[in-house]
């Protein structure tokens, strides 16, 4: 346990001193502010463009914005946040393989599964913190300008999307146990998400694809029931545990040079 805590502290120190924590926090704060800001300026932008649009034959009527506009923006922007998160965190293992820093730790008798669990925990903590920070900022502005109650099952819908992020992080861990460089991690993670997306296009099996958790519009508008996603949530949780579980024996047998 002592070695696990020591490794966690090391990961945390790295996050702070490398500036990665700061970059991600700034990014998610900006996204958090942008969601209501875009909703707020949309009518003004439309008004500005009304004259030029009228010349092309398009007549603008009154544009109505509310908290729903801002939440729609939130779920449009958050994939960019996750992509930035994956890009920044994809080298979490590979930079240790390539520089040889991990070899010294492991030759001191540190169990390899602790490396996997520590890095996974730090990424989950970071994703959770950044995601809910962004959510909190958007929620606060929305409450100030409009009324959040127009969005149905808001928190469960947001949890669904957060869970999709957790699954993506478990893929980073899985592919980091296999490959040596972060390009491989990015290709593996991106490829699996793409494959899951394609599976999600098939009506018969789509509920087994974690990418379904990104479908938020129906839930927010009240057109879909939360129970529709219970199978997807279950499958995603199993896939997360399986990805981390499989990465441990792979890591245990990995040749480190």
């Amino acid at each position, binding site marked *: 346990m002592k*070695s696990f805590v*020591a490794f966690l502290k090391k990961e945390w120190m790295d996050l702070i*001193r490398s500036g990665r924590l700061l970059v991600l926090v700034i990014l998610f704060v900006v996204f958090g502010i942008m969601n209501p800001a875009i909703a707020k300026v949309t009518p003004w932008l439309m008004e500005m463009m009304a004259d030029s649009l009228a010349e092309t034959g398009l007549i603008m009527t009154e544009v109505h914005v509310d908290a729903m506009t801002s939440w729609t923006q939130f779920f449009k922007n958050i994939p960019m946040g996750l992509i930035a998160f994956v890009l920044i965190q994809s080298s979490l293992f590979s930079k240790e393989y390539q520089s040889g820093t991990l*070899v*010294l*730790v492991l*030759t*001191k008798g540190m169990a390899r599964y602790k490396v996997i669990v520590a890095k996974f925990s730090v990424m989950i903590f970071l994703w959770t913190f950044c995601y809910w920070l962004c959510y909190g900022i958007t929620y606060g502005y929305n409450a100030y300008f409009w009324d959040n109650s127009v969005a149905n099952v808001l928190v469960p819908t947001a949890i669904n999307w957060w869970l999709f992020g957790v699954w993506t992080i478990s893929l980073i861990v899985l592919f980091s146990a296999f490959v040596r460089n972060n390009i491989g991690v990015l290709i593996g993670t991106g490829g699996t998400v793409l494959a899951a997306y394609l599976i999600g296009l098939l009506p018969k099996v789509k509920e087994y694809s974690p990418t379904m958790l990104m479908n938020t519009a129906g839930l927010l508008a009240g057109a879909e029931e939360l129970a529709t996603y219970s199978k997807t949530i279950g499958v995603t949780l199993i896939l997360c545990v399986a990805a981390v579980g499989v990465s441990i024996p792979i890591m*245990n047998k990995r040749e480190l040079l």
Partner: protein
Amino acid sequence: MDILTISNLWKRFGEKEVLKGVNLNVPEHSIFGFIGKNGAGKTTIMKSILGLLEIDAGEILVAGEKVKYGQTKTNRHIGYLPDMPEFYSFMTPYEYLKFCGEVTGMDSADIKNRSEELLKLVGLGEERRRIKGFSRGMKQRLGIAQALLNRPKLLICDEPTSALDPIGRKEILDILLAAREQTTILFSTHILSDVERICSDVAVLNDGKIVVQGALSEIREMRTSEDFLESLFLEVVDK
């Protein structure tokens, strides 16, 4: 008693048979010079001892315990200094040793005392900068400190002096000599004068086998020339 015993060790990389039945015994409290030309398989043997490489056949015992590939408990007996050690560059030397001490399960008072003692031994006692700006020689010295931190029974150094200038080399050799009181040292090199200077025992690896092994004093007695180690090395390599 031997702290390290390697019996009939075989290792192949693809088509190339790198180790062809290596047998090696390292006596306790020796400084064991492990000589071989570049690419002879010295690093392969060292990584096999640490359980970092899967061996094809043979057995490795550290302090009487068998080494297992992957996760091996025998590493608690070993301190390791790679040829080009890399540390977490965002830490200071003291923070790094604290981290290493916690990973090995040492208590905090012991970590503090031992870190101060070792950083002083390697000449980094007053260094407060982060490792990021360290020269190669400073990294080697810190490497020795981290390897000795938990009082290992065996210190493995992979070509610790090869990439250093003469002053850096002398510093490392002096530190290894000083560390002899605390542990057994196995160090690989192709710099023969380093071996002559500090080693008590020596083994020569050539073509995947140990061709000569014994106490340096005995080998010296067998040879007549002044540069006995060089002539021996050239002789076995040329065969």
